[in-house]
């Protein structure tokens, strides 16, 4: 390890990465939304003030969109050299509503420098179909175009700012929007969210509307509407296996237990897709999965920690050669998991170590309370006394940001802890966790960030 200052820098950056992966500024089980925002805001200021270069570089990591938007807003607001390409690449990965929300934020904050306008312009021009965006996110596109001082080509400008000027549009989606005002058939060519309003205006029954709009639904709309549409006798044909794992797990956990079992195959298929070529290469893996009451999350993040644990369960099952999943409650069937009971992590970690795994993955929010601190002691004695060489590779993945500590809660200083948001990032996180163990230094971390920045 290099110097003391570098050690601190390395730690700070990892801490920030953990926060930026997990925190969404929403209420969590142990802390309110206000605390989360305050804590996160401080962290952003701190890291931006002290390590501006690394601050921007974290955009390349798998941090969540909320934090990516915060970072971009901060970078554009403050003076200083910023790699515009880094921002552009991140914006391209974010979902369009998020980006439009960010643009709105910039507008509200009065951030309108040349760099900001250029980034907005490039992003808008790179949209595959701006006319479609203009229909779906009409006011947001309008605001962005206005804020970036753009002059949209052709009839798009008219559509946004003076739709009545034209009696017809040449672009199909714009024309569909115009005709949908009086023609019931035209609205089925529009995106679902827009068509829904027109359907209500024309008094079209829900069943008929859902059936005919079904082909236009996006992936997530399909999933969200599955239950409601089934009530009207329409199958949306949501494909669970194609969705992000945690999203699929969240959906499955929202169903009654009997129905959940029908989706196990889809979850397994999703996990196999994510595992890809790495399937079965991780050797002997044991996971300790948290289904204590705190894995309920909060009313705004319902069962999120539990969904992460469930997604990790299926992914590890796919990655491992031989896999054992141990739930805190002791249940055998993962898909029936429900958030209830205390958190006896220590005992379960012991059970896990007894299976003699090559890797031990703990997915928990780290509130070890039965008894408090037993997991830390078990891990400490294991590392110090029974396995000093580190033959069993242990990683703790934590889906919850602890506002008070400005980090995810750790189990033990001897075991690396990483924040986790999407189960898909699990392999990368286990890799990132080695920086937290203190064996690799700042230069490697820099190199890693740089490599990530260019590979994505």
């Amino acid at each position, binding site marked *: 390890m290099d110097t003391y200052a570098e050690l601190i820098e390395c730690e700070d950056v990892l801490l920030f990465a953990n926060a930026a992966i997990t925190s969404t500024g929403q209420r969590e089980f*142990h802390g309110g939304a206000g605390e989360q925002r305050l804590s996160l805001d401080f962290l952003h200021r701190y890291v931006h003030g002290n390590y501006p270069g690394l601050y921007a570089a974290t955009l390349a990591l798998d941090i969540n969109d909320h934090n990516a938007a915060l970072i971009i807003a901060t970078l554009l607001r403050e003076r200083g050299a910023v790699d515009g390409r880094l921002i552009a690449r991140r914006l391209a990965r974010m979902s369009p509503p998020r980006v439009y929300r960010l643009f709105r934020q910039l507008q509200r904050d009065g951030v309108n420098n040349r760099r900001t306008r250029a980034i907005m312009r490039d992003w808008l021009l790179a949209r595959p179909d701006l006319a479609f965006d203009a229909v779906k996110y009409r006011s947001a596109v309008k605001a962005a175009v206005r804020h970036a001082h753009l002059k949209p080509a052709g009839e798009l400008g008219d559509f946004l700012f003076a739709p009545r000027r034209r009696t017809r549009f040449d672009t199909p989606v714009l024309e569909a929007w115009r005709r949908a005002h009086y023609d019931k058939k035209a609205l089925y060519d529009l995106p679902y969210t827009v068509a829904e309003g027109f359907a209500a205006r024309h008094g079209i029954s829900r069943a008929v509307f859902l059936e005919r709009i079904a082909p236009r639904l996006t992936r997530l709309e399909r999933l969200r509407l599955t239950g409601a549409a089934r009530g009207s006798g329409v199958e949306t044909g949501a494909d669970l296996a194609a969705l992000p794992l945690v999203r699929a797990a969240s959906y499955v956990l929202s169903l009654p237990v009997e129905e959940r079992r029908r989706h196990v195959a889809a979850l397994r298929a999703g996990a196999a897709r994510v595992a890809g070529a790495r399937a079965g290469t991780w050797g002997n893996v044991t996971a300790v999965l948290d289904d204590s009451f705190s894995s309920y999350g909060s009313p705004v993040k319902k069962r999120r920690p539990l969904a992460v644990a469930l997604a990790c369960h299926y992914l590890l099952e796919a990655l491992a050669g031989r896999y054992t999943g141990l739930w805190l409650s002791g249940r055998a069937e993962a898909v029936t998991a429900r958030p209830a009971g205390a*958190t006896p992590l220590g005992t379960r970690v012991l059970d896990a170590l007894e299976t003699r795994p090559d890797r031990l993955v703990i997915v928990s929010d780290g509130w070890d309370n039965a*008894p408090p601190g037993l997991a830390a002691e078990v891990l400490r*004695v294991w590392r110090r006394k029974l396995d000093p060489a580190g033959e069993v590779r242990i990683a703790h993945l934590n889906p919850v940001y602890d506002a008070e500590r400005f980090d995810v809660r750790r189990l033990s200083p001897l075991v690396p802890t990483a924040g986790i948001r999407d189960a898909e990032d699990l392999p990368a996180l286990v890799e990132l966790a080695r920086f937290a163990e203190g064996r690799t230094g700042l230069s490697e971390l820099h190199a890693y960030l740089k490599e990530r920045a260019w590979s994505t």
Partner: protein
Amino acid sequence: MVDLTGLVTGPAQTWGTVRLVPLVRPEPIVDLRLHARVFGDELSMALLPDRTVYTAYVPHAFVASWTRDGTPAAAYGTQLGEPLRRVPIRTHRRMVRREAKNRLRILPLHLAMEGFLALHFGLPEIAWEDWTRAALAGGLSPRVEEAYSGAQVRGLDDALRIFEFHPGQCGLLLYVGDALAGAFVVPHPEDYRALHPTLIRDLFGELIHEYALHYPVRDFRAAIDDGLVASLADLRRQAVRQEEEWAGFHDSVMAAGLTAPNVQDVYRLGRFTLKRFLPAFDRRAENHIGELITDEEGRTAYLKTFRLSQAQVRRGYLLSELAAHGWSLVATAATLRTSSAELRTRIERAGFARLLR
């Protein structure tokens, strides 16, 4: 001492100054259950699977539409069977509307507590209803003490919210700043789940309120001596010992304060007996007042205690002396070595002026 046979102390969970000790019943009592009304309209929830008859109970001060015309009323004292003894509650319109949702509510603040105190001494109920109205309108005339609802005790709401139930949990001992604030036991885990949120509406004296502002209590920390560990089996042995120590930590250190010297039987239904108990009204010790339902062997099926504040202990002392002397001012004054006029003033100061003629 309250007989807590059949209940096992679970490991405690702490949050700030609040320590919550779960009481777990390995074998829940199935033939004594919360009155179906408590669960709202879902009558099926309290029905036994084999449709055998069970005895119902209603916790003290529990508000629901007991009356035929649907107006809210509070159970007056814990009730076995149908809640016959109840107090009509006069609420303003907004509260009535919230009542319509059949949500769990416990009578708030001093009504519950003072009513409880009065109840123990068998005061005439007519006077009580009259007094309720006066207290609701203007509070107790000379407010000599403060009482706090659970929501006002700092950190208690969070502690109760994040508390992780134990499987089979049927009760809770609640400590604030490591002073026992109350004990709560029900016969069945389902009842406990239904009533756990109402704990926030309990009443606490100023002692508890102030303790909650102090430093966080020290939590148990597991510590394993790695000198004793040479294998994984050793490690497990040590971990099990830690768990035992942790569960035992509470039993040996803290559960001593809950004594019930003056127990009286109130009502008997089937194999269950409803009892009330009073403390010794000793100003130097913890004073808990409470109700319990026991089975034929004297084991506790239901228990609810309140810790009296110092002012309430004084009142209780006064009432107990009065009751002991058949509510005769002269006789009581003679025992307390004071004049009848002075005693009258003391009663008035204690907020019981309406009891005087």
